[in-house]
């Protein structure tokens, strides 16, 4: 029999329901493999003992009607978990133990999931390589000294290395889709307002969304169904009719219109990415989709817009870290001195950089020139998509402009790091759903992903296209367990 840890979530659930594997057996397998995988640095907080205990309790009183019956799941350390340390990858929250649970994780536990541990991420989700984490970078299981992407880098690494059957991340500018692309896994950013932001450490509130990360599209649909819910505790949560994403999942995409935006052919894009995209277009045709050329004229303005809006919102959200109510406190001679020292010692370089940019663009005299201007351009970017969706049902693009890069390769040049998100950022600005699925490899055999972007609230179409193309692509990760002890 295949190892328990390499089963898909769907297979694992099936085995547990058929009583071929117990929740405790499954949990032991994931705990054991996680303990032998410390070199990846994927975990920030282990919940192994408690998870084993809860899995036994589940087996004593099993409820097989639940959607995640006794399934151990590790989550990104940006979700507040009641009584379990939550750091957001930052020194300033090093000892923070929340007294409440995020809605998204609560939805998982309500359906029988059990917390396995908290996964590494870029500090406050600001980064594209997991290198800004206070707790050190994460290794990509694909190859040694390769970044796993970011900010949900611990999540993508743990998932690709089979340390957790599925996981959840958050995506503000590509933080689910880019790491999924770098590790040969599937990651979905839902429509803004689908998954509650309650209890997620805030970065940029008008862009942040939680979403599922999984080994395949079917698993993605199962987890989305669990985490997507209307929540009164999030003022931007939207009360719309959610599909039963997993039971409505199908591969019939005959006649579906898929748009190819010409502006995504960016200068200097490697041939490998161009070829992957061309192949993707052929795969989509093979699956019965109709391909239509479209234009999203303001695409090249998306990144500059993002790097005003996101830091502005971040500087405001991160004002709460003042050393008074929770988190790190440095000693100072006066209250102001204490604030300044706490924030200087508590935040890392990238976070400080973004707070500074955000403070600057919101400061007196510059607000109109930067922040207001960016909000206007954001409107134009959204209108591009609105107009495209008069002609097509979904859009196909590469997920990233390159495959995973080496640790340290881009960490000294913020702008070159920001360019990683060139294909994912417009989707956050417009609030749309987008998925990355593995679609091929580069010359080093590193995975490359394709992104499918949908209409607002139309996750089902996005999933169905991905499900159909996944079968056609038939991608297999080639992971050698090189890190195992």
């Amino acid at each position, binding site marked *: 029999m295949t190892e328990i840890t390499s089963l898909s979530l769907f297979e694992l659930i099936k085995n547990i329901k058929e009583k071929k594997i117990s929740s405790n057996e499954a949990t032991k397998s994931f705990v054991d493999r996680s303990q032998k995988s410390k070199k990846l640095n994927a975990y920030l907080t282990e919940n192994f003992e408690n998870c084993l205990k809860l899995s036994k309790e589940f087996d004593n009183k099993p409820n097989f009607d639940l959607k995640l019956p006794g399934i151990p799941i590790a989550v990104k350390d940006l979700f507040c978990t009641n009584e379990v340390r939550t750091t957001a990858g930052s020194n300033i929250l090093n000892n923070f133990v929340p*007294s409440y649970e995020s809605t998204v994780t609560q939805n998982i536990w309500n359906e029988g999931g059990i917390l396995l541990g908290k996964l590494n991420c870029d500090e406050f989700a600001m980064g594209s390589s997991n290198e800004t984490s206070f707790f050190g970078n994460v290794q990509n299981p694909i190859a040694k000294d390769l970044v796993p992407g970011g900010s949900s880098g611990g999540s993508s690494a743990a998932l690709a290395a089979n340390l957790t059957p599925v996981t959840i991340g958050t995506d503000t500018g590509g933080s689910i889709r880019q790491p999924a692309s770098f590790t040969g896994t599937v990651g979905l950013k839902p429509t803004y307002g689908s998954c509650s932001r309650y209890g997620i450490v805030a970065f940029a509130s008008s862009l942040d969304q939680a979403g599922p990360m999984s080994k395949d599209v079917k698993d993605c649909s199962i987890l989305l169904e669990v985490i997507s819910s209307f929540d009164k505790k999030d003022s931007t949560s939207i009360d719309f009719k959610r599909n039963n994403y997993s039971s409505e999942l199908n591969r019939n995409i005959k006649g579906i219109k898929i748009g190819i935006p010409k502006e995504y052919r960016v200068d200097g894009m490697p041939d490998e990415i161009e070829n992957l995209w061309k192949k993707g277009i052929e795969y989509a045709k093979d699956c019965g989709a109709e391909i239509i050329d479209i234009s999203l004229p303001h695409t*090249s303005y998306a990144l500059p817009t993002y790097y005003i809006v996101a830091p502005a919102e971040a500087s405001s959200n991160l004002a709460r870290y003042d050393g008074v109510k929770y988190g790190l406190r440095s000693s100072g001679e006066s209250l*102001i001195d204490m604030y300044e020292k706490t*924030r200087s010692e508590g935040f890392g370089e990238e976070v400080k950089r973004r707070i*500074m940019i955000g403070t600057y663009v919101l400061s007196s005299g510059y607000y109109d020139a930067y922040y207001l201007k960016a909000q*206007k*351009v954001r409107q134009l970017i959204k209108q591009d998509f609105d107009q495209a969706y008069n002609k097509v049902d979904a859009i196909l693009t590469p997920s990233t402009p390159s495959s995973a890069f080496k640790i340290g390769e881009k960490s000294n040049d913020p702008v070159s790091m920001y360019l990683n998100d060139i294909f994912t950022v417009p989707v956050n600005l417009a609030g749309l759903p987008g998925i990355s699925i593995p679609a091929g490899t580069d010359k080093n055999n590193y995975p490359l992903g394709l992104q499918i972007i949908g209409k607002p609230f139309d996750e089902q179409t996005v999933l169905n296209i991905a499900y159909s193309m996944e079968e056609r692509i038939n991608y297999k990760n080639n992971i050698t367990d090189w890190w195992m002890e």
Partner: protein
Amino acid sequence: MTIDLKTVKHISKLARISLEEKKAEKLADDMNSIFEFIEKLNELSTENVEPLTSIAETTLRFREDKITSDNIREKILKNSPEKNDDFFVVPKVVE
């Protein structure tokens, strides 16, 4: 436009982040390269465009003015770096 050292120091005051001289210089360089990249937006005329503030086109909901959480004062105080029975303690503000 360039951001000089004086501006960086002013912004760091506003952001309540103390900054060493050396780091301030590096930060000025970084901010200048980022703003050079951001300036691209000035190519666009946006005179008659409505700013997009929220993607969720909903009006804020009302709720009943009722306490819904339990009394969790102790739990909340547990995370504070310095406390005194029922209060957060900070460096002396009033002489």
